[in-house]
């Protein structure tokens, strides 16, 4: 039912991997960062993002006329997975590089592409996702935020919530209603806007997550005047565009590699107490991760071929999110019976951080229940 094509790494991808590993080792050595669990949402460091931009590791697949580097999808995959495996502070640019940029490349005007993409690729422009609202989570089509046409643009009003990184972002892609639903069909009449977050009338307030970090936000749009060209793509096509964005959002290695850094940190300790029980856990985790990575590479390959692997992406995210929980629980099991004084420095905190991030895996980017529904629909069950 779901076939995942093979993505091959060429020698240049392997060379790139070595380069990235070298960079990460240097950064670690020079105390550039402390590895973090869930780093693509928890660890934002604009300075680090700029360094990546300078090396040509952002916007890698975009054309050079927009600041990109014309590289194949495989190269971007190498960079992102190495960053995740190292727990590097990539949160500042993550959303812009992963989805907003590619989305603008696909739907944006020449002007939008020229002003924003080079800055994203340089690691100087960060973006946020404005889909969810207080009354519209899983039921995204229930959003109330609206944009009204005026003589010289649009007026945006409403409230978005849970936008990761909006507090340090320059732009947000906002899904808004531009005309009423047609009866029960609420997916019509929605449009996307590329909103400059420095405009008057926008109020962003941080929300602390379970662990106390202010990582997501509520954003109020109080009659914000948007220029004509803030519209992204076609008026009324917002739902379809949003779904395309979600395919970019759901398929990547960040859906199964966020807890690995914690396990890696503990592995030498577990090795010191190696026994059959612990070996089985490590082996099973290895098998699961390697297979999921192969599938995630397959989704990347489908994107490269211009296919729309939306459901395949859901398959990867669904299994990946489950695995993340599994890894941390199994890790706790492996640590059982090892005296605390043997634990490496700072490991308590790292494990704790991973545990406190776990509930978000199966929520953000579409909940487990919603993803399973999408997969079932693809099989004709709904």
């Amino acid at each position, binding site marked *: *039912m*779901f*076939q*995942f094509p*093979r993505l091959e*790494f060429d020698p240049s991808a*392997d060379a790139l*991997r070595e380069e990235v590993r070298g960079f990460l080792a240097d950064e670690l050595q020079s105390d550039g960062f402390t590895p973090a669990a869930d780093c693509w949402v928890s660890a934002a460091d604009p300075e680090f993002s700029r360094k990546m931009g300078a090396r040509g590791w952002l916007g890698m697949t975009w054309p050079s006329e927009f600041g990109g580097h014309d590289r194949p999808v495989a190269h971007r995959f190498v960079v992102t*997975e*190495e960053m995740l*495996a190292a727990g590097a502070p990539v949160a500042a640019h993550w959303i812009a590089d992963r989805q907003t940029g590619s989305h603008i490349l696909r739907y944006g005007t020449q002007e939008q592409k020229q002003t924003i993409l080079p800055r994203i690729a340089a690691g100087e422009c960060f973006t946020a996702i404005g889909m969810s609202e207080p009354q519209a989570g899983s039921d995204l089509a229930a959003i109330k935020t609206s944009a009204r046409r005026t003589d010289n643009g649009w007026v945006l009003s409403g409230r978005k919530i849970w936008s990761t990184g909006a507090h340090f972002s320059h732009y947000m892609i906002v899904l808004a209603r531009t005309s009423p639903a047609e009866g029960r069909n609420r997916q019509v009449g929605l449009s996307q806007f590329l909103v400059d977050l420095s405009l008057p009338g926008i109020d962003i307030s941080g929300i602390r997550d379970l662990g106390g970090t202010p990582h997501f936000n509520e954003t109020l749009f109080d009659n914000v005047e948007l220029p004509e060209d803030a519209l992204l793509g076609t008026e009324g096509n917002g739902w379809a565009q949003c779904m395309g964005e979600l395919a970019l959002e759901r398929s990547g290695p960040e859906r199964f590699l966020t807890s*690995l850094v914690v*396990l*890696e940190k503990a*592995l*030498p300790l*577990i*090795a010191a107490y*190696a026994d*059959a029980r*612990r*070996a*089985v*856990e*490590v*082996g*099973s*985790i*290895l*098998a*699961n*991760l*390697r*297979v*999921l*990575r*192969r*599938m995630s590479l*397959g989704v990347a390959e489908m994107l490269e071929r211009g296919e729309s692997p939306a459901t395949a992406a859901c*398959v990867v995210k*669904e*299994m990946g999110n489950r695995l993340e929980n599994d890894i941390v629980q199994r890790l706790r099991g492996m640590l059982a019976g090892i005296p605390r004084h043997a634990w490496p420095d700072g490991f308590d905190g790292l494990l704790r951080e991973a545990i406190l991030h776990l509930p978000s895996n199966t929520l953000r980017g579409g909940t487990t*229940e919603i*993803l*399973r*529904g999408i*997969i*079932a629909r693809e*099989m*004709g*069950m*709904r």
Partner: protein
Amino acid sequence: MDRDDFAMIAEGLDRILTDAPLDAIDKAGGLGTEADALWQTLEESGYTLLCASEGHGGSGAALADILPLAALAARHAAAAPLADTILATGLLSAAGQQPPALRIGLIDPLAPDAPIAHASQSNAVLSLEDGRLRLMRIESGDIRSVHQTEDGAGKLLRQPADVLVDCAAPEWLIPDAFRALAALIRASQMAGAMEAVLGLSLDYTRDREQFGRPLAKFQAIQHHLSDIACETAAAMAAVEMAGDALCADAKVGPRVIDEIAIAKTRCGEAASRVAAAAHQAHGAMGFTREYALGRYTRRLWQWQDEFGSETEWAELLGKAVLADNEPRLWPRISQPI
């Protein structure tokens, strides 16, 4: 052999299996005149010698080419030792021996006392011991069937006296490699059976109505089906990955064995989940001998354990990681094939 040739070979097998009375053959335990007729067709069409060299009358296919055929036969729940025989004849041919036209079961070199799959459906078994491949003829009196097993799995009551071939194994064919090849075939069979389970479950839940609507309309049932689909996709990907590794190194070096360990582990884990979800979605009907689901789930549970369970293979993988000087998973996860 190129892709087109191979696609034709697979199509041919699919046709043969579609036409054969597989349900009846299965109910007869893979024995009897219908089973014999099926086997004869398979033999005459050249399937049993797929991996034997052309000089030995075979097709000279790579060992990795067995995998799609194994999955296909499993999708049909074909009670015949086809994949095991192809592997056995391929190995004998690689050892320079003309493989005889027999149905051949495989003795696990690392667990020689485990039940031998297909024992009662075969007329010979292949063992690897002390660097020698031995093909031994078996009679029905040599076998004690194991209670409630599929595919005629049984134990040898005595060492078979009639040794047909006794030759030096190819140098690369160490016991771990032999077992890994057989385990990979089981992994591929599991993936194929899971595909069949998915199809059955979709059909059944669309047809069966409760509370005035098809089961497929209930979200809880949709979630079971999504689970089955995800796990099946993972199993298929795992087998493909190991197959790629085997293509790159037909002599089954350590990297291939690792990749097979991953496949057998992942498929074994998937099998449990898939079988449980499918039975739940089927209700009591799935628990009958008559309905087709059991033909697949019984095999899934058996194949999980043949040639190393997921626990054994995972332990092997994990041990290697933990024995490293600087134990880390990432280099292994991101390793190229």
